[in-house]
C-alpha cells in the first residue's frame, strides 16, 4: 500500500527534473537570505549588548545562521542530483547520499520551525535580561571614572535619545538612583549635606533626570530638575505634564523594537520552510520515478513515483529493524575474536540477512 502514488511519463520526469532544478536554486537563495537575516539579527542584538544581562536570546540568530549555511549546501546538492537524474549512468551514485539528504532536509525544516517558536518563547527571558541590564546601566551612570563602567553614561544617554525612552519602567527610576557623581558635589554646601543625611544609604537622590530624557517635541524648554515641585517652575503641573520628558520606559521600547524585528521576519521564515518541504517532496518523487524507470526494460517508458513504498507505520518499523541490525553488526562478538574463520562465517551469515533487509528499502 504505497503512499501517494503518481504516474510519470518520460516527459513528466524530465519536466519534474527541470522544475526541481530551478526550485532548488531558489531554495539556495532562500538559504542565503536566512543566513543574512541571522547575521542582521545578531548585529542588532550585539549593538545593545551592554544593556542586556545575558545572551540567551542569541540562540535565535545563531540557529538562523547555521540553518542558512546548511540549507545552501543541501539545496546545492539537490540541484546536482537533478542534473544527474536524466543520466542513467550517473544517477545511481547518489543512492546512499539521498537517504542522508532526506534526513538533513527534514532536520532543517524542524530547526526553522523551532526558530519561529523560540522567538516567541524567549520574549520573557529577553525582558528579564533587559530589566537587569538597564538597572545596572542606570546604577553605574555616574561611574564615568571607574574602568569597565566608564561608558555606561554615554550608552544610556544615546539609548534614551535614540529609542525616545527614559529609565527602566519610566522616568521615576532616576529618582531612586544617585546619578550625579560625588566628584561634582560640593560637600561644603548645606543643601548637599542635608540631602545626603536624609537618605538612609547616604546617597544623593534628586527628583531630577538626565538631559537625555528630554522630549524635543515639548513646546517648553526642557524641565529636568525639581520635577515633582510645582512651585519650582512657572505655570507647571507635574501630574498634567506629558510632553516634557519621554513617557515610555526603555525596557518596553527595546522589547517592542526586537519583537517587531522578529515578527517581521516570521513570514519570510515560514515561506522558506514551505519551499524546503516542496524541494524535499519533489526530490523524493523524482528519485522513486527515475529508479522505477531505470528498472524497466524500456527506460523511456512510464514509471511510478511515490513518497513511501509501504505505509507510514510499516516504514517506521522497517527503519527500526534496520537500525537495530546495524547496531548488532557493530557489536564485537567474543567468539569471533578467537577464530577468524568463525568470524568470516558469521560475516557471511550476517551479510545475506543484511542484504535481505536492504533491498526492500532501496527498490
Amino acid at each position, binding site marked *: 500500500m504505497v503512499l501517494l502514488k503518481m504516474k510519470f511519463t518520460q516527459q513528466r520526469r524530465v519536466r519534474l527534473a527541470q522544475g526541481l532544478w530551478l526550485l532548488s536554486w531558489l531554495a539556495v537563495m532562500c538559504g542565503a537570505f536566512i543566513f543574512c537575516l541571522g547575521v542582521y539579527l545578531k548585529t542588532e542584538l550585539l549593538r545593545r549588548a551592554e544593556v542586556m544581562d545575558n545572551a540567551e536570546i542569541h540562540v535565535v540568530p545563531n540557529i538562523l545562521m547555521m540553518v542558512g549555511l546548511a540549507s545552501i549546501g543541501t539545496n546545492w546538492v539537490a540541484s546536482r542530483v537533478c542534473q544527474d537524474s536524466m543520466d542513467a549512468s550517473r544517477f545511481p551514485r547518489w543512492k546512499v547520499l539521498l537517504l542522508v539528504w532526506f534526513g538533513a532536509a527534514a532536520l532543517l525544516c524542524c530547526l526553522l520551525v523551532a526558530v519561529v517558536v523560540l522567538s516567541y518563547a524567549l520574549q520573557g527571558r529577553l525582558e528579564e535580561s533587559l530589566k537587569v541590564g538597564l538597572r545596572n546601566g542606570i546604577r553605574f551612570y555616574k561611574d*564615568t571614572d571607574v574602568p569597565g563602567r566608564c561608558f555606561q553614561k554615554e550608552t544610556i544617554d544615546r539609548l534614551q535619545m535614540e529609542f525616545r525612552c527614559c529609565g527602566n519602567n519610566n522616568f521615576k527610576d532616576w529618582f531612586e538612583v544617585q546619578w550625579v557623581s560625588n566628584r561634582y558635589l560640593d560637600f561644603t554646601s548645606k543643601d548637599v549635606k542635608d540631602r545626603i543625611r536624609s537618605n538612609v544609604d547616604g546617597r544623593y537622590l534628586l527628583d531630577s533626570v538626565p538631559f537625555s530624557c528630554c522630549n524635543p517635541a515639548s513646546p517648553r524648554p526642557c524641565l529636568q530638575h525639581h520635577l515633582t515641585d510645582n512651585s519650582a517652575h512657572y505655570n507647571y503641573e507635574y501630574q498634567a505634564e506629558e510632553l516634557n520628558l519621554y513617557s515610555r520606559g526603555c525596557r518596553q521600547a527595546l522589547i517592542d523594537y526586537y519583537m517587531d524585528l522578529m515578527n517581521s521576519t516570521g513570514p519570510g521564515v515560514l515561506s522558506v520552510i514551505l519551499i524546503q518541504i516542496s524541494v524535499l517532496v519533489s526530490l523524493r518523487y523524482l528519485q522513486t520515478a527515475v529508479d522505477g524507470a531505470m528498472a524497466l526494460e524500456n527506460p523511456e517508458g512510464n514509471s511510478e513515483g511515490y513518497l513511501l513504498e509501504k505505509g507510514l507505520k510499516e516504514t517506521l518499523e522497517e527503519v527500526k529493524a534496520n537500525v537495530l541490525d546495524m547496531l548488532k553488526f557493530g557489536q564485537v562478538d567474543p567468539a569471533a575474536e578467537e577464530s577468524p574463520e568463525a568470524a568470516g562465517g558469521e560475516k557471511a551469515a550476517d551479510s545475506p540477512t543484511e542484504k535481505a533487509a536492504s533491498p526492500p528499502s532501496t527498490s
Partner: protein
Amino acid sequence: MAVLKVKFTKTKRDKLAQVLWILNWISVVTGILLFSLGLFLKVEINKRGELMAERDVQYVPNMLIAVGLIACAINFLGGKICYDCVDAAKFLRWKLIMLPYLICTFFFTFCVLVGAVMCYAMLGELQEALELGLTRAMRFYKDTDLPGRCFLKRTVDLLQIEFQCCGNSGYRDWFQIQWVSNRYLDMSQKEVLDRFRSNVEGKYLMDGVPFSCCNVNSPRPCIQHQITNNSAHFNYEHQTEEQNLWMQGCRQALLHHYSSITRSIGLTVLVTWLFELSVLTGVRYLQTSLENVLRQGDPNSESEGWLLERSFIETARTNLNIIKSLGKSNQIDAAAHADPNINAPSTSKAHYGPDDVPPRPGPAASCQ
C-alpha cells in the same frame, strides 16, 4: 589633412560597433545613476528646507535630474544606432540622423561638465542660505505657539542632537537671543523683571543653552544654565571645559555634511562626463568610417575614420561660412555680385533688383 585619422578594416568596424553598443547601454545605466543622485540631493536639501533661507540651491539637483534623463535617452538612441551599424544596409537608415545626433551629444556632454562644476560651486550659496536660515530658526525657537513656526523648536533640537552641534557658529549664539518664551517666565518675580530691564531691546537673555546642546560624551551631568558663572557649579571652569557641550557650530556641521555629498556626486558626474566623451569619440569614428565605406562602394573594404575631415581651423571656417550663408539665403542678391552659374534666380524675369527695371510694354501692347 584629417584630424586623428585611423584605418578600419571590416572586422575592426564590426567590433567597434559592438563595443559601442555595450558602452551605450552602460551609459544608460550611468544616466539612471545620475538621475538617482540628483533625486537624492534634492531629498537631502528638502529635508533641511526649514533651516535654509530663500536661496536658489535647487537648480543643482534639478539640473542633475534633467541631465540624467537626457543621458538615458541619448544613449538609448546611440545603442540602437550602433547596433544597426554592423550592417551597412541598416546604416543607411541612420545616415542622415547621425551627424545631428553627434552634434547634440557633443553639446550634451558639455552640459554634463557644467553640471559637475555646479556641484562644487553650490557650496558658497549653501553656506549663505544656512547662515541666514539658522539665525532665523534660532530666533523663532521659542515661538512654539505661532502657526508656521511651531515646529522650529523640534527641528533645531533634533538637528543639534543628530549633527552634534550647538548654535550657528558656536554655543554663544544662544546667549544673544531669547529662547525661553514669555509664556514660561514668571513676570511677578524681581529677577525676571531685572533681567528684562537690563536688556536694551527688552529681551530675556541668559547664559544658558537648550538641552540639545549637551554633549553625550561628557563624564559629568550636563551643565546647561549659568555656563559662564564658574561659582555656580562645583569644580567647574568655563574656559577649560570642552566636553560639556557640543563645540561645533551647526552651520559648519551642515556644510561639512553637504560638502561630502556634493563632492562625491561631483566626482561621479566627472567620471560620467569622461565616459560619455569617449563614447562620443567612438561613435564619431564609426560614423566617418562607415560613410567612407559607402563612398568607396565596397562594404567589405578598408576605410578611414577621423574626428574632423579637415584641420580644426578649416572646419571652423567652413562651418561659419555655412552659418553665414544660411542667413543670406533669404536676402535678395544683387546681380553684380551673383555668379550666373550658381545663383540661378538672378537671371529669371521675376527677380526685381535695383538694376533690373520691369520691362516696358511695347507700343503694340499698350492698352487703348
